[in-house]
């Protein structure tokens, strides 16, 4: 549902009051109309059962507008992106430094005797994505952290414009490569909404199979990095082995270790190449191995000591920011699309609700991930059993591209992925992807309450985000 407001302040007041009464702020972006010099601001609000778009057109030739950030703090990074992309000044924004386009950074945040800055990145030790952390510290504590994500800005959003819808899926898969399936799903959901087509039930099940395997692989990756940060060599190797087994299962199903090429508008490109009984056997075996490893890890006290109380996000902050995925769930804020706004196979499969956590620390985040892995294995078993009944079905319904605009969403391992797609004559006019990584990474500013430099790798790993999805 799209609503247009008469002016910016009216829109901001509407947003502020609806966020206060329980809706979740899910993003803000600007777009220039193709044929004239007018910029439109679109805000997303997740409500019960839907995601709404609230819009306002700025006056022609506008160079600024009153900032939303003082009213809704979660808009902090979104308004910096708008400033980067259009030069529009959000008046009253607290720190308007460049975010996704390279530019001159602002000076240090914290001043004082003995304060210095440790630049960490963009080329970092180990095999990491490029990001620069500027750690402002008097030696051990971290009173402030700055992040520069613009190094790997790739122009993904601009690249979408003009692509055919079927090429758009391929780019969506490469927007955030470790969540390829979730991004392809969110993109295809938007396209399917525009076209008014419904994938066949068997496609919904295959989509669930791939999305849940992707979730397990991502959570195993986070657990592996945490074990690595704690120097647990055997645990790191064991978790890497399980992750490799999951990725090999995915590649046996579809030919790609990341589930690429599976999700297409109208369904899936093909059914898994594995026989259902074989898939069920593999899932059962993996489930036993992973659950046993998780139990051992969560009984290793030297490991848990590093996580307990590390990088806590307060429940109040998680709620006002609308923290997504495991980061939100660990701080008592759970808004899982699979439950709240179900799609594909999740409409009929029983997704267990998240358990209540309030600690919000790295420990709670890892607990949430293991609970999600556990429920993913349950969902995989059910989806595989249901698929066994439908192996003769067509995997794909016809989905003729139509003109229009729609939002699509999916629950990635990192949390909600949103795609705002406009299409005309079979081509994408505009596509705005919003990853959970973008929405959540800014929360890294908030969680260094008394944590010191050696906690940094634990906090970063426990967030489990991908920089590719942030700088786009």
């Amino acid at each position: 549902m799209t609503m247009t407001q008469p002016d910016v302040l009216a829109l901001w007041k509407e947003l502020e009051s609806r966020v206060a009464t329980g809706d979740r702020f899910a993003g803000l972006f600007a777009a220039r109309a193709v044929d004239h010099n007018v910029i439109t601001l679109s805000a997303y609000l997740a409500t019960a059962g839907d995601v709404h778009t609230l819009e306002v057109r700025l006056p022609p030739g506008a160079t600024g507008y009153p900032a939303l950030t003082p009213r809704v703090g979660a808009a902090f990074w979104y308004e910096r992106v708008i400033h980067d992309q259009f030069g529009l000044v959000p008046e009253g924004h607290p720190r308007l430094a460049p975010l996704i386009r390279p530019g001159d950074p602002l000076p240090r945040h914290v001043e004082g005797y003995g304060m210095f800055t440790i630049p960490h990145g963009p080329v970092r030790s180990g095999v990491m994505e490029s990001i620069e952390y500027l750690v402002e510290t008097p030696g051990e504590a971290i009173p402030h952290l700055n992040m520069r994500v613009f190094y790997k800005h790739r122009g993904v959003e601009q690249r979408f414009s003009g692509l055919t819808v079927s090429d758009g899926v391929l780019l969506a898969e490469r927007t955030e490569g470790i969540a390829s399936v979730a991004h392809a799903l969110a993109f295809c959901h938007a396209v399917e909404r525009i076209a008014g087509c419904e994938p066949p039930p068997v496609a919904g099940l295959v989509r669930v199979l791939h999305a849940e395997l992707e979730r397990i692989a991502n959570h195993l990756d986070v657990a592996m990095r945490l074990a690595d940060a704690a120097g647990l060599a055997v645990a790191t190797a064991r978790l890497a082995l399980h992750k490799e087994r999951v990725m090999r299962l995915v590649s046996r199903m579809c030919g790609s270790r990341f589930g690429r090429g599976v999700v297409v508008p109208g369904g899936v490109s093909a059914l898994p190449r594995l026989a259902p009984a074989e898939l069920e056997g593999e899932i059962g075996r993996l489930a036993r191995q992973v659950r046993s490893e998780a139990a051992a890890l969560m009984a290793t006290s030297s490991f848990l000591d590093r996580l307990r109380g590390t990088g806590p996000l307060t429940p109040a902050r998680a709620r006002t920011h609308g923290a997504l995925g495991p980061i939100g769930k660990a701080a008592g804020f759970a808004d899982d699309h699979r439950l709240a706004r179900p799609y594909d196979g999740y409409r009929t499969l029983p997704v267990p609700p998240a358990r209540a956590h309030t600690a919000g620390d790295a420990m709670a985040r890892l607990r949430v991930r293991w609970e999600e892995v556990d429920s993913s294995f349950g969902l995989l078993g059910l989806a595989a059993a249901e698929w066994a009944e439908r192996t003769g079905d067509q995997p794909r319904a016809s989905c003729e591209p139509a003109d229009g605009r729609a939002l699509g969403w999916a629950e990635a391992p990192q949390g909600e992925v949103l795609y705002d797609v406009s299409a005309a004559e079979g081509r994408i006019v505009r596509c705005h992807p919003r990853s959970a990584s973008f929405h959540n990474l800014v929360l890294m500013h908030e969680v260094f309450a008394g944590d010191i430099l050696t906690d940094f790798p634990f906090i970063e790993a426990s967030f489990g985000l991908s920089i590719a999805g942030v700088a786009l």
Partner: protein
Amino acid sequence: MSIWVLRGLRDGVVTTRWPARPDPYADAWRGPARPLEQSERLTGITDLCPTGAITVTGGTVQVDQGRCILCGRCVAERPGVFAWSGGATGPAALTREQLVIPELPETDATIQAARARLAGRTRALRRSVHVRHVDAGSDGSEEWEIQALLGPVYDLHRLGVFITASPRHADVLLVTGAGARGMTGPLRTTYDAMPDPKVVIAAGTDAVSGGLLAGSGSVTDGVGATVPVDIWLAGSPPSPFGVLNALLIAVGYLAPDGRKPR
């Protein structure tokens, strides 16, 4: 802690024997698309490819595997003209032109020259090699596949190859990503900080040509514009075996055709 000692023994040896022995998973892998010898009409086939990897010159179909993102559209739509290439290890080439198949005969001399250039440097590396990885605008999946090499299944260390934090200790620069303009400076600085002799690997279709992001304006359409690439590795992303193969070519342990050079 003692539980981990026993757990470490639980599955026995899970490490691949490749390249000393063939690996069934590597052999079953599908690589980029390749053209078949064909007699079909070729109208419209260049439009099939989302990255423009397909060209037709004088009735011969060529696929630039350095642009192929393995979407499989050409194989699905025109199975008489295109097929998957086999094996997880490739394709890795010493010149950019070599990734265009079938190769044109005039590239032979340049390949010989490239081989000689690389051999001169790899002789000095011997069998203990340190690798510095730089992400120049990847989608994140390449990092996962490189990270996998450090796990027990691929175990890079058994071959004497190590990931290092400092470019001062590095012999090989392993670059991923389409060449984001923001990373041009840091990538060049890293390359300059490495001692000679050094070898550069462009890992993945994005690093080779920019992949789907080529032409976005925010990337340099591959990392070859910033650093001199010695080994071009296609794949979106390349499989761990592919990265391993490229590293072994960099060390001089393997030749690009998969054989041992000596």
